[in-house]
């Protein structure tokens, strides 16, 4: 199938390009200009931004095991609606993605039902129990893009150090969920004046920072590429910034909820604002925004974590952590970061596409000829109020209901095929 995207503003950070031009696609790849024929699909992208397909490197697809929350079919449909052409899915399914068969199962289900590309992340330890290494090399051969015990920290520092050493020969990054459980102390929201007012147990910033510091030290010593998942505090941003200056191979991601909302969003015990790490204070939100602007934070990822209505319709202490993010991410990036001048459109695309692709070591993140035709079109003027009933995903647990977003994905193309088109 042939396709020409006309008159769009091409944002291609990999090539440093930002210009209005036509983009040509043939047979699933971006190609040299050609003359259209009767089979050519011509799309007018005038006034819109044409970017390399966006990659969300932190998503929970919940299959296998929790299909009532999300499936590979519904999660990738949500991704397509959110402008993402690829997602990395975390291994905390049931069973845990900690062996070759589990990785192959995800790949098989993606072929059968996936709307976008799926990059499985394998567990670092068997069952993500933090006791012994999983078969990392075997999973790597089967297609695991990176390794993480996301949702659970690797508490044993010696084990984390061995995992990093092992990964250096696999060419895969370790994605670390940084949380010292003894400091987190069973907390359910950010420790601050608002947790004090609500009487909820707080998670101090040190719970994250102590483990960010530990993992940076281990990454420096082992040479393993380390990626800090869902960074949330000012102190963590400082640690990553300083480590990068020293040449440690460390990267970091932040979620849209952590650069948009503070702990005040918990409001009147709103369980849809219960997330781990918790929504932090005002100074932390400012710090992650600065970290995005100065390049300390490489990627924006959603930590899309679907939960059913009934699971969230309980006491705050009992509700599971997590919120859905795939279908609000681009709108939040444009509304909160691009329109406010914190990021240029080119930088935003870098953090949503090129950098995640580079960290995961996957193709994509470019509009160069010969690259897979994974393309996202964003209308910077399209405005919408978030209504979870319109979500393509299975779950509705968002704290952004009613938020006005400006700048939304309108077209998602994977391997030359249109997977989503906003009406």
């Amino acid at each position: 199938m042939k396709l020409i995207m006309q008159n769009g503003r091409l944002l291609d950070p990999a090539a440093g390009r930002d210009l209005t031009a036509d983009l040509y696609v043939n047979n699933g790849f971006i190609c040299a200009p050609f003359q259209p024929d009767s089979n050519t699909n011509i799309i007018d992208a005038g006034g819109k931004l044409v970017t390399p397909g966006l990659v969300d490197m932190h998503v929970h697809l919940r299959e296998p095991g929790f299909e009532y929350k999300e499936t590979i079919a519904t999660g990738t449909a949500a991704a397509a609606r959110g402008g993402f052409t690829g997602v990395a899915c975390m291994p905390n399914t049931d069973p845990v993605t900690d062996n070759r068969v589990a990785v192959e199962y995800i790949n098989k289900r993606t072929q059968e039902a996936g709307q976008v590309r799926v990059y499985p992340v394998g567990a670092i330890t068997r069952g993500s129990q933090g006791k012994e290494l999983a078969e990392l090399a075997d999973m790597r051969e089967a297609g695991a893009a990176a390794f993480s015990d996301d949702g659970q920290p690797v508490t044993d520092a010696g084990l984390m150090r061995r995992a990093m050493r092992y990964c250096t020969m696999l060419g895969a990054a370790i994605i670390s969920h940084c949380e010292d459980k003894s400091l987190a102390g069973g907390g359910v929201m950010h420790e601050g004046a608002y947790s004090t007012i609500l009487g909820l147990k707080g998670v101090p910033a040190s719970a994250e920072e102590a483990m960010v510091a530990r993992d940076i030290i281990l990454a420096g010593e082992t040479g393993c590429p380390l990626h800090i998942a869902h960074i949330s505090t000012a102190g963590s941003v400082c640690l990553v910034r300083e480590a990068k200056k020293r040449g440690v191979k460390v990267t970091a991601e932040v979620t849209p909820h952590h650069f948009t909302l503070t702990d005040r969003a918990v409001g009147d015990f709103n369980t849809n604002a219960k997330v781990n790490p918790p929504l932090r204070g005002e100074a932390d939100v400012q710090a992650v925004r600065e970290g995005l602007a100065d390049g300390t934070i490489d990627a924006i990822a959603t930590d899309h974590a679907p939960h059913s209505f009934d699971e969230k319709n309980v006491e705050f202490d009992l509700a599971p952590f997590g919120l859905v993010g795939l279908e609000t991410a681009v709108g939040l990036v444009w509304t909160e970061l691009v329109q406010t001048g914190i990021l240029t459109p080119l930088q935003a695309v870098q953090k949503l596409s090129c950098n995640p692709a580079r960290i995961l070591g996957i193709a994509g993140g470019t509009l160069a000829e010969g690259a897979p035709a994974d393309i996202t079109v964003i209308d910077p003027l399209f405005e919408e109020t978030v209504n979870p009933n319109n979500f393509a995903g299975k779950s509705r647990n968002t704290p952004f209901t009613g938020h006005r977003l400006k700048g939304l994905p309108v077209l998602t193309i994977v391997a030359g095929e249109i997977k989503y088109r906003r009406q």
Partner: protein
Amino acid sequence: MYKHKDLLGIREMSAEEIGFLLDTAGPMKEIIKRQIKKVPTLRGKTVVTLFYENSTRTRGSFELAAKYLSADSINMSGSSSSVAKGESLYDTGRTLQSLGADVIVLRHPMPGAPRLLARSVKAAVINAGDGAHEHPSQALLDMFTVREKKGGLAGLRVVIVGDIMHSRVARSNIWGFTKMGAEVRVCGPSTMIPVGLEETGVQVFHQMDQALDGADVIIMLRIQKERQQQGLFPGLREYSRLYGLNRRRLELAAGDALVLHPGPMNRGVEIAADIADGSQAVIEEQVTNGVAVRMALLYLLTGGGAQ
């Protein structure tokens, strides 16, 4: 006027609403003092006390308040009911509503549980204590007691001493007394003062002698022994030495200072026996006033005083 469906916390109340509730409790106290302590006001109304935590005085207080007003009341406990079988609070609330409950009085170990219940049912919900969040009827009875003795609340220096971090009584009293124009001080070990408490408008002390200087009202909190196992303080001996109210310390306060305690007391730990039984203690009156305040709440939340 009090125009809300529920009573969930003092934080969301205005000074006018608090004053109105205290005014309404006055005549209720008269009823309790009568030979025949019963009026027909709430005949045909049903009050359910739903307690997920052990409590004798709060529960008994609400039950008697309902009975003195002629409401029908039943008890449900978290341990003996369907809750033990894993029923959600939402489903329990819907069941009680179907049984005809007009008011549900909820005691729950988790902050925000009454808000969840209030969103789930049409019945009025009264928070009888939710974790470390709020215990509004306790704060109202404390304010009622102080107002009755002092004639007003504005300008008083109120000192709350003890484990502030885990205390819903402290939080509700902080909101209540500050809204009514009192100066509130809190005092306790630094491991039991929650982060950012100053933002509620209180002054934080760690030296009890300093905190008590010129105090008009002293509210002593119960120290829970399990906090010692959590490593929040080294032991009762040291705690009592630093934060126990004794004769010498009471003399640092104003000469006519009142001593309150929400109960149950640890005599000899946070409060010396001679103070608990002394002339400045109003601990037993707090209990009586608690019934009056809860009668006022039940009356107002079932539509009384609407005209």
